[in-house]
């Protein structure tokens, strides 16, 4: 796909994304889109540590939840403004990522996966039992939405309508894509890929594995935290389930099906999985059944997800063309 075509495609998609709230007025579908946006941010952030750095992190739900709870508590108990809370809560999630990463990233592969999963469970347990802080299983209610932004000419942007919240999530989604893309395309991103490709070789060419992995993990958790904050102020209510490892598994599914190690993959995976079953009104148990089945089939036959598979088709075609040229 050459540059011109790609640019026009992106602009078109962006235009569609911007127009949607003016066209879609059904609250049910708007809700699905907003949630897709939030989950896309989470999936994209997971992709950084999983797809680009090659570490199977199963604690992502915990950091999403930490971001959500931190923001909710700051807004409810400390009466802080949403716009101040957002970066702070995300930083808290990132900070916990850093703390956990220090011991966890000394392990590899399946040990790392199990270790992070256990950490996730610890977080859920603590959130559930520490009622003094989190209200435990009762949950936190009445979390305010984003405060209005005053404009220079006296008006203000409020976030009471669904359309406004949609645009808010869209903005943060674009921001996330932009930032992550910048990181991935830089030398820093290259070192992430080197660790994923061959950690021993990466170290042999002078890359510091621990430092690189911790960086990737911390940034990943930061953005998971942002997703959490958006979730908290959109839904208005939190309970310990949102820190649960099922959230981690869900994010994993979105990323794996869409395509690990690509920028577009997680978004497509999220969109497909969040929107299709909802619109077809498939019951929850059957959904999980399908996800499980699809995950198994995909990891065996299409380990790079849908986007990865499309890319490999393109590459195979290019290889064929090159060999024709040479013969």
């Amino acid at each position, binding site marked *: 796909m050459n540059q011109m075509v790609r640019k026009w495609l992106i602009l078109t998609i962006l235009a569609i994304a911007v127009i949607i709230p003016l066209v879609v007025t059904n609250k049910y579908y708007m809700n699905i889109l907003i949630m897709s946006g939030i989950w896309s941010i989470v999936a994209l952030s997971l992709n950084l540590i999983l797809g680009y750095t090659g570490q199977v992190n199963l604690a992502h739900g915990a950091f999403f939840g930490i971001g959500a709870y931190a923001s909710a508590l700051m807004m409810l108990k400390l009466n802080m403004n949403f716009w101040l809370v957002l970066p702070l809560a995300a930083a808290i999630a990132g900070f916990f990522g850093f703390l956990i990463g220090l011991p966890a990233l000394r392990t590899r592969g399946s040990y790392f996966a199990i270790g992070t999963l256990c950490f996730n469970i610890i977080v859920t347990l603590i959130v559930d039992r520490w009622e003094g802080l989190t209200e435990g299983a009762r949950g936190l209610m009445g979390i305010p939405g984003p405060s209005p932004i005053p404009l220079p000419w006296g008006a203000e942007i409020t976030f009471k309508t669904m359309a406004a919240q949609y645009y808010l999530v869209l903005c943060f989604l674009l921001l996330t894509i932009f*930032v992550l893309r*910048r*990181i991935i395309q*830089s*030398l*820093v*991103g*290259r*070192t992430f*890929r*080197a660790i994923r*490709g*061959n950690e*021993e*070789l*990466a*170290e*042999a*060419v*002078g*890359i*510091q*594995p621990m430092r690189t992995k911790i*960086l990737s993990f911390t*940034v990943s958790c930061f953005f998971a935290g942002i997703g959490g904050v958006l979730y908290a102020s959109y839904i208005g209510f939190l309970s310990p389930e949102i820190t649960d490892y099922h959230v981690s598994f869900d994010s994993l599914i979105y990323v794996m099906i869409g395509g690990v190690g690509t920028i577009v993959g997680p978004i497509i995976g999220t969109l497909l999985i969040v929107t299709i079953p909802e619109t077809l009104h498939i019951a929850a148990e059957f959904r999980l059944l399908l996800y499980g089945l699809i995950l198994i089939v995909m990891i065996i036959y299409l380990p790079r997800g849908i986007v990865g598979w499309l890319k490999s088709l393109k*590459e195979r075609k290019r*290889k064929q063309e090159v060999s024709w040229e040479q013969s």
Partner: protein
Amino acid sequence: MGAILTIQGLTRFFGGLAAVMDLSFQVQSGEILSLIGPNGAGKTTVFNLITGTLLPTQGKVLLKDHEITGLRPYKTTALGVARTFQTTSLFYDETVIDNLIVSYRCRTRMGFWDALIHTSRSRKDERRCRQKAEETLEFIGLMERASELARNIPQESQKRLALGLALVTEPKLLLLDEPMGGLAEEENIGMMAIIQKVRASGITVLLIEHKMKIVMNISDRIIVLNYGQKIAEGLPQEVGRNSAVIEAYLGAGYGEN
């Protein structure tokens, strides 16, 4: 010019087995020193001990006069000791040039925040990486394959690329572990030329290789290991006539003709 690498009393046990036992030698600056010996003699283990992949049970490794024993591989690489691996190690999912670009990272200064806001430092570093990568491509003769995926290029090119990855880190000492493993006769000559070019550019080479003709041809000096111990050291002709060496090999294909 003095010794660039000094090994003193290097010993490494695996359980009860001594893979390397009380090994001492020096690598002179600017030479090509070959490490030979039958399979299992401990040659790769010596490399691992030098670069820090393995910790020695006893002994010291010194770079010039600076002790580097037990430093992690990324540190030894930063200090100027680069290596290749016995089984060709590459970033297979990346292109040839991307392989080299990321291998120069250790010589750049930019950090996370530089990347995030695209500072001039990051732009400079990224340009230098690409420049160095292209220079190295030229040096190892893989310019035409720059945008091919590492997994798709032929084996000989892969071996060159592996050498290139080590080379681009600007080492003072290059450890090559069987750089000609699995290559055909004609391909050996190409590799040999590159190794001589490396030495000509001022880099010292420590080489593990099984192909005796090459070793005899290219080495300034040879050290022979058997069962983790040094059994001979000296000029190629001397070593070739050493009875202990011949016995260790029991007819490894090198004749006195």
